[in-house]
């Protein structure tokens, strides 16, 4: 049975919806700039330039919530637009997030630490699970709600779980993706790891130094073949493969040979029933840390051998949006499938000496692209891959 994608929505520093996002991708315009908040001003980040209150107003949301929930609502609403709620179509929502409502709870907690009165009601927005419940409420979805929290692979894992629940007949339709709002907690966290690049990040470049953080959300609507007959929705793409595996190497670092990455890519290919040679484009995880990009390159080489398809990391457009990245990049993947786009790996100049791999350098449309493989790897060695295919 096929799993179809029948809706998509995205918000990040390069655009507030799918249309704006496509324009930015086409113009090779990054959303990464010098940060504007007190905690981000020393770094280059992919920030969305509106406050939480402004976003609630601009997107006509019904709930005040954390940034993670708000961004999720915006992208999920776009994805679900035009989909009718119908009691015959059991609809669930699975969202990935790493920090949940931290952007608001950290402010209350700071008041508490300073001996000031903290507004206790703010903490209700903190649990990651609550962000998904708020997104589901905004869409009036209530057949099933779940939150995946596997750091930077969260959204891809949410997509994967959604597909498996459809296949098993537990749901007829599911909204899946991920969301993460920037917070002081996250920025300080990655600063403590000393993996920021003070310049624009350069995935797969020999001179890469680390990541630029970003924020955003990306969601898809998945339906079974049976559901499509009843919903009458036009499919945008097929979700044909998925895989998750554990690198089991180190708390934060990836194994040098990309063992977990290799397992995830291979199992996604197996589910899809495809050979590596069927893949026309790889949207790599490509965070631009020295460790990830080298490890992922080795993994790609192991899986694809000497014929490596065009690949790139789009983190230099959006920054690393953590739990949202797999959802945002799935939206990029669908655009790429439908318009034959090869997405450029901005800021790339010089191949990594050890691998010699050269990513896509320029934007182009009209290529023949039938199958796309998209990687997302998280802390703790959580490696995930999905494959999207053209209709």
């Amino acid at each position, binding site marked *: 049975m096929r799993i179809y994608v029948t809706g998509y929505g995205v918000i990040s520093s390069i655009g507030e919806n799918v249309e704006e996002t496509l324009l930015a991708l086409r113009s090779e315009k990054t959303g990464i700039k010098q940060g504007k908040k007190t905690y981000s001003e020393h770094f280059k980040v992919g920030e969305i330039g509106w406050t939480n209150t402004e976003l609630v107003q601009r997107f006509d949301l019904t709930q005040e919530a954390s940034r993670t929930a708000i961004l999720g609502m915006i992208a999920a609403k776009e994805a679900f637009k035009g989909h009718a709620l119908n009691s015959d179509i059991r609809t669930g929502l699975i969202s990935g997030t790493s920090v949940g409502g931290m952007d608001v709870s950290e402010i209350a907690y700071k008041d508490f*630490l300073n001996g000031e009165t903290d507004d206790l009601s703010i903490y209700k927005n903190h649990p990651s699970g609550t962000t998904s*419940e708020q997104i589901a409420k905004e869409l009036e979805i209530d057949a099933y709600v779940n939150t995946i929290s596997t*750091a930077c692979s969260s959204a891809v894992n949410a997509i994967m*779980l959604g597909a498996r629940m459809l296949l098993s007949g537990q749901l007829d339709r599911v909204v899946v993706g991920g969301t993460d709002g920037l917070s002081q907690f996250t920025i300080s966290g990655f600063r403590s790891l000393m993996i920021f690049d003070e310049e624009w990040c350069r995935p797969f470049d020999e001179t890469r130094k680390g990541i630029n953080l970003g924020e955003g959300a990306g969601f898809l609507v998945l339906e079974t073949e049976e559901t499509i007959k009843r919903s009458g929705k036009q499919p945008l793409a097929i979700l044909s493969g998925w895989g998750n595996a554990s*690198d089991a*190497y180190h*708390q934060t670092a990836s194994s040098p040979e990309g063992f977990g990455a290799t397992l995830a890519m291979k199992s996604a290919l197996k589910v899809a029933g495809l050979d590596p040679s069927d893949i026309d484009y790889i949207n790599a995880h490509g965070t631009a840390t020295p460790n990830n990009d080298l490890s992922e390159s080795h993994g790609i080489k192991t899986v694809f051998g000497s014929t490596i398809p065009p690949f790139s990391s789009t983190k230099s457009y959006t920054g690393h949006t953590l739990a949202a990245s797999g959802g945002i990049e799935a939206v990029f993947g669908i655009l790429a499938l439908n318009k034959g786009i090869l997405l450029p790996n901005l800021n790339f100049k010089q191949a990594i000496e050890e691998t010699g791999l050269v990513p896509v350098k320029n934007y182009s449309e009209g290529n023949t692209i039938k199958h796309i493989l998209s990687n997302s790897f998280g802390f*703790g*060695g959580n490696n995930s891959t999905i494959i999207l295919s053209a209709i």
Partner: protein
Amino acid sequence: MYFIQHIESITHQDSFQKDNIWNDLKPLTGENELISPDYKNYIPVAALRRLSTILRMGITASKACQEKVANEFDSISVGTALGCLTDTEKFLVTINTVSGDILSPTAFIQSTHNTISGQISLDLKNHAYNMTHTQNALSFEVALKDGLLCIDEGKNSVLVGAADEAIPFLERLRGSLIETEHPFTSGATFLVLSGEKGNSIACIQACEVYFTNENKATQVEQFLAANNCSFQDLDLILEAGSDFKSQAKKHYSFLKYSGFYQSASAFAVHMANDWLIKNGDDKTILIVNNLESNKLGLTLIHRNDVEA
């Protein structure tokens, strides 16, 4: 059917590596501390020092499970409602009090929810499917449903667990955000499920989650009907609250024994499994997780049929 091959809990009860947890089970008072096993038996001392309670519990309970089953886990699915609160709070304090460029990353690294499942895979050198679910009071049930799905997909040694840890800060939210008369506690329960019976006594027949505000009694009735049984067939109801006490032959509020943490329904599975070991005539147990009023988790546990 999803057979319970082994189950371990670390809680405020004497519940780790016990023949039967009912032997020592007592309602908790506010004075009961977490009963920690000798973690050194499972975690190298050097590593132990930097691990919070939730990580110690999760790693130890899952390693103790792995020791008891022949096969390596081919799926690991963990549920946690609030995740690694100790390290989250520690890092929040650090970023608000430590000036300068050098911050210790350990608390940050160990603050993410999937540190538990990630650390389990790392310690067991396990490369299998590895998932972390978090859905407030249904965190265990959504993790369990993933585990059951893994068995449906053909996996055969599936680790499912839940863990949460209490920090003093939670006490500030009592009465406003968290309504409970029970003490805040820490707890972890991990179980190994398989599609094959093996030496198991009991199995999980079904698990369902509900997010609507419909009448809970109706939802329970429909769930039971869908599984070909009714209240009359239930030998025991383990419930977070006591809404279904009048319909139960026997009834325990599991929070009285686990204390309050949002994934405590996992401990109720341990209570159910051991109840069936102890009470040879009883067959069917329903776990009602109505810890939060806007959602409901139902798990049906059944004694394995005896083969003729």
